[in-house]
C-alpha cells in the first residue's frame, strides 16, 4: 500500500498534528511518502523521516506558503498520481479538511474526516469517525480503491522511530488558475500554543468576571505549557478573541487535560471538549452541570483557586 501524507506547516514548521498523520500512515503499514508545501525549514523536512516517512517531497513554490485550497488540491492530486498513492492521510484543520474534500472529489477517492483511530482492514477498509460533535462515533466503510483520510488530533501518537528519509524537491508546475483565490493578508497570533494542537488547555468562562482577570489564567497556562481557551459568551462579549472559543460552533479540542474555570458547562460547550482525556472543572457553583462531565472537580472561587493551583503545579515539577 502506498500512503501519502500531507505534512502541513505553519511559519516553516511542520504541524504537530501532521506528525501524527505521518505516524498514522506508518502504523497502517506500507510505504509512507510525506509532502510538504511552501517555505519549510530544512531541519523540519528532515525530521519527517524520524517520525516514519520513507520519502519526503518538498514543493518549494513560495506561493504555497499560505493555504490556497485549490492550489494545494492540484499539488496533492498530482503527487497521488505520480506516487501511485492508495491513501492520502492528512490532519483535520482549517486547511486540511477543505483540501481533503477537493482531492477526494478530484481523484474519485472515498473520503472520511474526523477519523479517530487506525482503520480496520480485517474485512474491507473501515474507519471510525467522530460525529454529532463528539457525542457519538460512526464506523464507515471506504469502498473505493483510493481513499482520503483526515485524522483528528490523537488518532495516532507522533513518536520518533529513528528513520531517515531523503528530501526530494517536487515540481508542482502550478498555473495562475490554481491561485484564482488570492490571500491578501494574514493576521496571526505568534508564539502562542495553538488551541487545536495543545496537549493541555486552560479555559475560562463568565465566572472569570471580565477580560482584565485573564492574567491568572494565562499564568497557569504558561506554567503548564497549555493553550488558553474560553466559552462562547466570553468570545461573544469580546473578552477573548474568537479563535479561542471552544464548543459546538467553535474549536473542538481533544487534549490530554482540559481545565475549565468558571464555565458552567452548557451542552454546547461540552460538545467541544468531550473527547478530552481528562477534564478538571473549577466552579464556585457546586451545581454547575459541568461537574457531571468532569473527572476532577473543585468547588471554589476562580480567583482563589487559580494562584494556588499554579503554585502547586510549580512545586510538583
Amino acid at each position, binding site marked *: 500500500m502506498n500512503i501519502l501524507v500531507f505534512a502541513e506547516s505553519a511559519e516553516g514548521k511542520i504541524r504537530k498534528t501532521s506528525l501524527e498523520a505521518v505516524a498514522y500512515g506508518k502504523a497502517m503499514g506500507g510505504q509512507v511518502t510525506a509532502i510538504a508545501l511552501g517555505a519549510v525549514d530544512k531541519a523540519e523536512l528532515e525530521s519527517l523521516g524520524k517520525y516514519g516517512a520513507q520519502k519526503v517531497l518538498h514543493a518549494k513554490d513560495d506561493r504555497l506558503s*499560505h493555504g490556497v485550497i*485549490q492550489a494545494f488540491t492540484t499539488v496533492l492530486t498530482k503527487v497521488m498520481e505520480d506516487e501511485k498513492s492508495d491513501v492520502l492521510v492528512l490532519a*483535520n484543520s*482549517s486547511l486540511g*479538511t*477543505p*483540501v481533503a*474534500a*477537493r482531492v*477526494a*472529489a478530484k481523484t474519485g477517492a*472515498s*473520503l472520511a*474526516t*474526523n477519523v479517530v483511530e487506525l482503520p480496520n482492514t480485517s474485512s474491507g477498509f473501515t474507519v*471510525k469517525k*467522530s*460525529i*454529532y*460533535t463528539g*457525542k*457519538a*462515533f*460512526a464506523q*464507515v*466503510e*471506504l469502498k*473505493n480503491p483510493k481513499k482520503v483520510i483526515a485524522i483528528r488530533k490523537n488518532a495516532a501518537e507522533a513518536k520518533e522511530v529513528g528513520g531517515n528519509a531523503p528530501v526530494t524537491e517536487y515540481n508542482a508546475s502550478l498555473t495562475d488558475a490554481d491561485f*484564482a483565490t*488570492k*490571500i*491578501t*493578508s*494574514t493576521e*496571526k497570533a505568534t508564539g*502562542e500554543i*495553538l488551541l487545536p*494542537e495543545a496537549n493541555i488547555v486552560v479555559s475560562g468562562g463568565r465566572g472569570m468576571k471580565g477580560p482584565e482577570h485573564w492574567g491568572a489564567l494565562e499564568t497557569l497556562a504558561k506554567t503548564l505549557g497549555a493553550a488558553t481557551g474560553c466559552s462562547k459568551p466570553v468570545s461573544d462579549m469580546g473578552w477573548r478573541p*474568537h*479563535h479561542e472559543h471552544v464548543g*459546538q460552533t467553535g474549536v473542538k479540542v481533544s487534549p*490530554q*487535560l482540559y481545565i475549565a474555570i468558571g464555565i458552567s458547562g452548557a*451542552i*454546547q460547550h461540552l*460538545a467541544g471538549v468531550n473527547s478530552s482525556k*481528562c477534564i*478538571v472543572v473549577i466552579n464556585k457553583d457546586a451545581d454547575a452541570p459541568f461537574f457531571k*462531565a468532569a*473527572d*476532577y*472537580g*473543585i*468547588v*471554589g*472561587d476562580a480567583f482563589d483557586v487559580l494562584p*494556588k493551583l499554579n503554585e*502547586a*503545579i510549580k512545586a*510538583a515539577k
Partner: protein
Amino acid sequence: MKILVCITHVPDTTSKINFIDNNTKFDTNGVQFIIGPYDDYALARAIELKESTGSTVTVLNVGTAETEPTLRKALAIGADDAIRVNAEPADSFFVASQIAEQAKAGGYELILMGRESIDYNSGVVHGIVGEMLGIPSISPVMKLDIDGTKVKMAREIEGGKEYVEASLPLVAGCQEPIAEWKIPNMRGIMSAKTKPLKVVEPKSVDSGVKLQKFELPPPKGSVKMISADNVSELVTLLKNEAKVL
C-alpha cells in the same frame, strides 16, 4: 446576484444522541430539528446581502418531506424560494452531487452553506461542490463582503485569520461571526407559507462510503471532588492517577 444557501436539518444542539435498529439509525424520538447553526449564519449573511445588493436567495435542502418545516423557517427568515431534493442525505458526496446539480441548473453565483453540519461534522460538502463545479471553495469563512465581482473574505485559521479575495462564482463554508442569526418575524412566518418550495428528485450517485454502524462513547465515570483548600491533591491525582501531567 443569485445566491444559493444550502441548509441542513439537524437535531437541536441540546439533543441527547441515541441510536436504534441495532445502532444503524438515529433515534429521532423526542428530538427537535433545527437549521444547522453554521448554515443559519450563512443564511443570515445571504439575507443581508439580498438587502444590500438586491440579490435573490434560494434555500436548498437534501432531505425527505419531514425537513420542509426547516425550509419554511428559512423562507420565514427571508429567503425567496426553496428547493428540496427528495432523498435521505446519505453522505457528503451524495449531498454535494445534488447541490452541484441544482447550482448548475439554477445558475447560482454565490453558494453559501455552513462550514460543517452538526450531525456528521464532516466539513467537506463545500469543497466537493467547488471541485465538481470547477470554482473556488473557501472555508471556514467568518466575514464575506461583495465588492463588484470580487468577494472579500476572512478565513479562520489556527490561531488567526487569513484575508482572501476571489471572483464569483464561488462556494463558501460559513461560521460565526459572519452575521447574526435572524429570528423570523410574524410577517415572515405568514409570507413563508406561500413562497415557492420546489421538490425535485435526486440524481443517482455512486457513493464510495458506506455507514456500517453508530457507537456511543463509553459512559463517563463519576467526578472526584477535591477541596479548594487542598489543591496540591489535584496535582498529585493528575500526575499519578490520570497520568496527564
